[in-house]
């Protein structure tokens, strides 16, 4: 089983990236032996729909669960449709998040944790009027 963690860097000691759709990297971790693949998130610079693009990538890499800080509505819909479990509200290192997951300390979320464009910083998303 593979799980996906949004991360700010390419190894397990990196901090978990609180944004899902516009995180720096995705780490696909096998919790059994802690081996992982780091994939740069192409959606980071998407003109729009970063959440849906990221979700497609995560699903395409065969992840069964996502550990992140926040998930917006579109990403949530796509991940949910792909049957991927979503865990939000995480912070700290990728390693620590995976350990928590392994111990069964995390609860899946059943709704998006933020509104659209929350990961864009000031100014809103590409499609916004102002």
């Amino acid at each position, binding site marked *: 089983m593979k799980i996906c963690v949004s991360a700010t860097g390419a190894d397990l000691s990196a901090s978990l990236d609180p944004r899902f759709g516009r995180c720096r990297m995705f780490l696909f971790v096998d919790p059994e032996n802690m081996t992982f693949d780091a994939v740069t998130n192409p959606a980071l610079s998407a003109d729009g729909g*970063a959440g849906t693009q990221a979700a497609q990538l995560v699903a395409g890499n065969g992840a069964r669960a996502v550990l992140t800080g926040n998930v917006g509505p579109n990403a949530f819909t796509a991940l949910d449709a792909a049957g991927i479990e979503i865990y939000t509200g995480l912070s700290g290192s990728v390693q620590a998040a995976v350990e928590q997951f392994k111990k069964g300390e995390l609860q899946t979320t059943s709704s998006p944790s933020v509104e659209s464009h929350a990961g864009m910083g000031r100014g809103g998303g590409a*499609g916004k009027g102002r």
Partner: protein
Amino acid sequence: MKIAVASGKGGTGKTTVSVSLALSLGSVQFLDCDVEEPNAALFFKPKIGEELPVGISVPEVNEKLCSHCKKCSELCAFNALVVLGTKVLLFPELCHGCGGCTYICPEKAITEHDRTIGVIQRGAAGPIDFIQGILNVGEPMAPPIIARARAMADPKKTVILDAPPGTSCPVIETVRDVDYCILVTEPTPFGLHDLHLAVETMRQISVPFGVVVNCWGIGNDAVEKYCAREQIDILLKIPWDRAIAEGYSRGEPAVSVVPELKKEFQKLYTTISQTCHKARIHEAVDHYQR
């Protein structure tokens, strides 16, 4: 002649200027292109005669024909289509209606249908032909409605377009083919900062422009210095006047509160039409010499 009224910063007085200009000229056409929050109607109080829905074409995927090749999702610049294994998800509010997915689909599994995102209303306010676009609440994409409003511009009339604030797509869509754009600012550091952005935008898309300074008398002289340095015409200074603000809050146009302003707006129009006339002559001469 088409004149847009825009600004980098919101709340500088675009509607004050565009409404007053229209009322000072009489028989013009007015397009409220601030479709996310059109408010010129509060001042014109027009009788709306017709309402036209505005839609964009969004794809519909026939799951029976789809081979899940992902070509559509790879093509979509806005990630409105997602292919997850044998599922295709569409996010209609991300779709810009370009039709690329329909075109690229090798299985011809995609058809298009119209999704309504807002309306155009048309009516009359005295001699003024009034048109406003209204984007449905929750819809993110204003340009298709603005484009539809612009398409109704009467070539035989002076057309005044009230633009949305800022410098993003809806503003570009409003001002892209006007003859002149009035940039409204206020004499404050914030006003100057956003005026600068608006000026850069107009230069980038080659739209002739000049500046109206609203609330003249507050703030500092940095806007004036900036315009002098950049050789930008200041067309009009509207003095700060509490009565104008109070009138605005009651839906009374500035030219009704301070009737002397009418003459100023008529002069403003004359200046702009002379500038545009000169530009056309230059263009013609340039063309001839080539």
